[in-house]
């Protein structure tokens, strides 16, 4: 009995000593106990560094790089997701609505109002110089660049959606490459043209009381008769300031993109592109209205930028104050075409 007691005691002590050691490997391989609590008190998943924690320290997640290109250290920039959502989601719809909306509005206007016809008078047939050669040169340099910039700019938004399915990826790739070249390089004569136009025409585009009266009278678009106007009416002044303002904004944002990361970080670059694209779309829509009224919408208007000389009756109807001013300024009328003998010019 005593031997049995001794053996039992020995086995019990051995079991107590060996038990934890024998179970240790099993615990080591599965430190999470049945109740889910780590015996060390650690919560590796919950306590690990996560995005939320990192974004509390800074609005981007960056690493460290050894090359002199600091932006390559960006790992996560959450604003980029918002930018992508705008670029791929909202922008095409904004662009389509603005541009097609303007085309539709002009179509409806043309259907209801029709072409604004020239009102003939005894002054018809005589010409008055409206824009000199340099003004027309500046206008057309800016205009031709604008058309190419618009088409190549729209290609950035709609090309892969509309053009590529029609012509295939290879042809689209080549066209997009050349469109990009034209966009980047024709931006320079465009910026120069906007600067020239501003200098040449700003004096005649300062808003005044006559413009308010012109607007209240509907600008001659509504009803009959023409309100008084100087060299440029309120509508034309609106186009001028739109071109000056939007041209400046497009130039600044465009230069920021031409020289990437020179003055802006990644977020700034994305912001520049958003501003550039939205203003560009509104700019295109506005210029569509300008093109309409300068060609199809009004008889006689195109001559001003075509030959530079407009019919005196047209000028008297649309810019009566300017005609009076010009005739008073140059009584001999160098800006007027000499009429046939026996038909004195109004200024004479």
């Amino acid at each position, binding site marked *: 009995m005593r031997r049995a007691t001794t053996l039992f005691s020995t086995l019990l002590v051995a079991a107590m000593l060996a038990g934890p050691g024998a179970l240790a490997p099993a615990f080591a391989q599965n430190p999470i106990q049945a109740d889910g609590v780590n015996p060390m008190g650690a919560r590796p998943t919950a306590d690990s560094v996560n995005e939320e924690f990192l974004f509390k320290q800074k609005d981007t997640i960056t690493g460290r790089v*050894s090359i002199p290109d600091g932006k390559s250290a960006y790992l996560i920039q959450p604003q980029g997701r918002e930018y992508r959502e705008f670029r791929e989601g909202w922008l095409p719809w904004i662009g389509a609505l603005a541009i097609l909306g303007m085309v539709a509005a002009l179509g409806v206007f043309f259907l209801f109002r029709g072409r604004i016809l020239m009102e003939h008078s005894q002054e018809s047939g005589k010409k008055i110089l409206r824009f000199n050669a340099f003004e027309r040169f500046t206008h057309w340099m800016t205009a031709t660049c604008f058309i190419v910039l618009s088409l190549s700019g729209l290609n950035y938004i709609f090309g892969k959606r509309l053009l590529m399915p029609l012509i295939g990826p290879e042809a689209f790739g080549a066209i997009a490459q050349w469109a990009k070249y034209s966009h*980047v390089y024709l931006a*320079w004569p465009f910026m120069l043209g906007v600067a020239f136009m501003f200098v040449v025409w700003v004096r005649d585009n300062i808003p005044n009381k006559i413009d308010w009266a012109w607007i209240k009278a509907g600008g001659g678009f509504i009803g009959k008769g023409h309100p008084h106007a100087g060299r440029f009416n309120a509508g034309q002044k609106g186009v001028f300031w739109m071109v000056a303002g939007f041209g400046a904004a497009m130039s600044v944002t465009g230069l920021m993109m031409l020289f990437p990361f020179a003055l802006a970080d990644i977020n700034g670059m994305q912001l520049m592109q958003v501003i550039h694209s939205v203003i560009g779309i509104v700019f295109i829509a506005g210029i569509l209205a300008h093109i309409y009224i300068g060609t199809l919408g009004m008889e006689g208007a195109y001559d001003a930028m075509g030959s530079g000389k407009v019919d005196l009756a047209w000028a008297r109807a649309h810019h009566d104050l300017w005609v009076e001013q010009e005739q008073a300024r140059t009584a001999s009328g160098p800006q007027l075409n000499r009429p046939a003998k026996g038909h004195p010019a109004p200024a004479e």
Partner: protein
Amino acid sequence: MKAFAAAVIAAIALAVLAMFALTSNQRFAYQAFATSGARVSEPGTNLVGPRWNGDPRPDEFNAEPHGKAEGAGSAPKRS
């Protein structure tokens, strides 16, 4: 018409001038961002190989890859 033609010619001329002015100051990223302590891979000679499968053959390292950028190579590592 003369003003229009002159405007188009001037626009193209200015665009060509802008092209030369802009491209003359451009450098490839592997040139601009390489230092004596860091080499930036040259386009077309990346580690994944010209077939982009991560398993370039030995001869592909020295072969002239398609689309390789022209220009002076990056500075070799000193160490």
